[in-house]
């Protein structure tokens, strides 16, 4: 049992950036003689070889399968066969919607050591130890995997920096056994904008969360956002309730505030999924009545107070 096997993800012909972060994460696990291999499963995996020729990769494994896009049965069967052949010590996947659909199944079937949403890996006295969050990310939890010769870890995105330097890894093809799939992918659907706002382009966002309490309060914050010149955004509960269109949702399943430089979060508690869409923003100001809210962990400035009072007072200045 040695080496690291990374499963890279592609979607609709694009390599998912989180895959590259896994390559950097793997470097800290290397022991003498260990190799880092990156596998990619799709109908034409050779298309991704050039994009994966990066420093830290010793081998690129193309796995040609019948499913062009993610399919749980295909992934479990092919990656299971690859693990059986290569016996890696660690298998790294992204903690993503795709891995939600197969990683736990693979671990349960093969008896692999297993942890998800891991943001730190280390060896303590030779044993692999993974760290993840617990109790709504209020504590850190270290887990180990006694007696497991292969450990599958799903890593949190935006923790490890992707490698930049190019390299010339060897390339091999893995012949995956034919797998019968019990689901059939139909089509991708882009969420219609609902309004013509592009949250990914907004430089200044004022976001509202569960703390606003009721739909009637949305108007007040919409007016405030207009007055200060911000784009109004929201966290998941607001979009789920239909108080703002889904296109305004910032977070993992919504939009990433890619261009944002100033982000004011009002009544947003800061669930990990929301943080994924905005924690990179240089200046985050959090306004929340709960001094313990997670959002204060990523904000540059914090205001502990009543969001309606602050909103009213702020409006006077514009």
């Amino acid at each position, binding site marked *: 049992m040695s080496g690291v096997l990374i499963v890279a993800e592609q979607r609709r012909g694009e390599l998912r950036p989180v895959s590259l972060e896994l390559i950097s994460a793997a470097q800290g696990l290397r022991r003498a003689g260990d190799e880092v291999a990156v596998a990619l499963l799709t109908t034409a995996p050779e298309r991704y070889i050039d994009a994966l020729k990066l420093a830290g990769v010793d081998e690129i494994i193309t796995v040609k399968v019948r499913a062009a896009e993610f399919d749980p049965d295909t992934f479990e069967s092919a990656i299971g066969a690859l693990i059986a052949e290569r016996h890696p010590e660690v298998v790294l996947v992204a903690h993503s919607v795709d891995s939600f659909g197969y990683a736990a199944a693979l*671990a349960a079937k093969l008896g692999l050591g297993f942890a998800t949403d891991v943001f730190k890996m280390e060896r303590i006295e030779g044993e692999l130890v993974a760290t993840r969050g617990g*109790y709504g990310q209020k504590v850190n939890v*270290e887990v180990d995997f006694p007696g497991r010769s292969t450990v599958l870890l799903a890593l949190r995105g935006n923790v490890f920096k992707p490698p930049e330097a190019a390299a010339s890894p060897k390339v091999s093809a893995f012949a995956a056994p034919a797998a019968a799939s019990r689901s059939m*992918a*139909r089509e991708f659907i882009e969420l219609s904008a609902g309004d013509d706002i592009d949250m990914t382009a907004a430089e200044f966002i004022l976001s509202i969360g569960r703390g606003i309490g009721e739909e009637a309060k949305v108007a007040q914050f919409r007016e405030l956002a207009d007055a200060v010149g911000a784009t109004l955004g929201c966290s998941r509960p607001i979009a789920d309730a239909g108080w703002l269109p889904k296109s305004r949702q910032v977070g993992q399943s919504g939009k990433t505030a890619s261009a944002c430089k100033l982000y004011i979060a009002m009544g947003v508690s800061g669930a990990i999924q929301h943080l994924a869409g905005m924690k990179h923003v240089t200046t985050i*100001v959090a306004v929340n009545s709960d001094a313990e809210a997670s959002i204060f962990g990523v904000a540059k400035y914090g205001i502990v107070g009543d969001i309606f009072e*602050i909103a009213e007072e702020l409006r006077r200045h514009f």
Partner: protein
Amino acid sequence: MKILVAVKQVAALDEDFEIRADGRDVEADFLIRDLNEWDDFSLEEAVKIKEAAAEPIEVIAVCVGPEEVDESLRKCLAKGADRAIRVWDAAIEGSDPIAIARVLAAVAKSEAPAMLFAGVQSSDHSFASTGIATAAILGWPHAAVVSSLDYTPGAKSAVFRRELEGGLLHEVEIQCPAVLTIQLGINTPRYASLRSIKQAAAKPIEVRSLADLGLSAGDVGEAGSLSRVRRMYLPDKGRAQLIEGDAAQQAKRLADIIREFKGAAA
């Protein structure tokens, strides 16, 4: 026909809390328990399917945990579940999601439902693993992060949409019975009426032991788990610089930050 809904009673931390003496968990006294937010949606989805079905459907909520989880199961009964099953044994203590999945799979085997729902993840430990591991143990088709579902009980297949990252959906058809993990926002969970809460209080909660399910102590707990908690500790968190003062003073400072940004952007 039956739809099985796996639910979890999650724990949130009290404002001040202490780590247990063995360093591997938080002292139980500091935990505030509730039904997992995601499970409200998966239960509602099952109840909606039941209400729309031509034939009688039994919605069964199942939870692995000690007596205190009855509170969450009663909530499920009040919101439309027909039966509630609780599985517990001291040996289950210390189980990871895979060991819990083994228990849930055993319940599914004995109830033989047409469909099994679980939440995408739990709000406390966010493993996003239990439902899909249950499917693997059962050998059933499975899909995660389902944000809309078209399913008629008894049908050989169901069509659903997976909610992907960045506002993209993926439509998929799946063979049934299947395990689907249900995403927030798939429906609008109902509130329990006072009357249904009262009725739920009088309903029995069926308690099963490991032996009832044909499991042994080695299938659960640390022995049946794929990971083990070594240590729990408080993270060194980045902390926002707090803007002090009354609301007017705080808002004034916030207005200055906005103006600084606008000046720099201009």
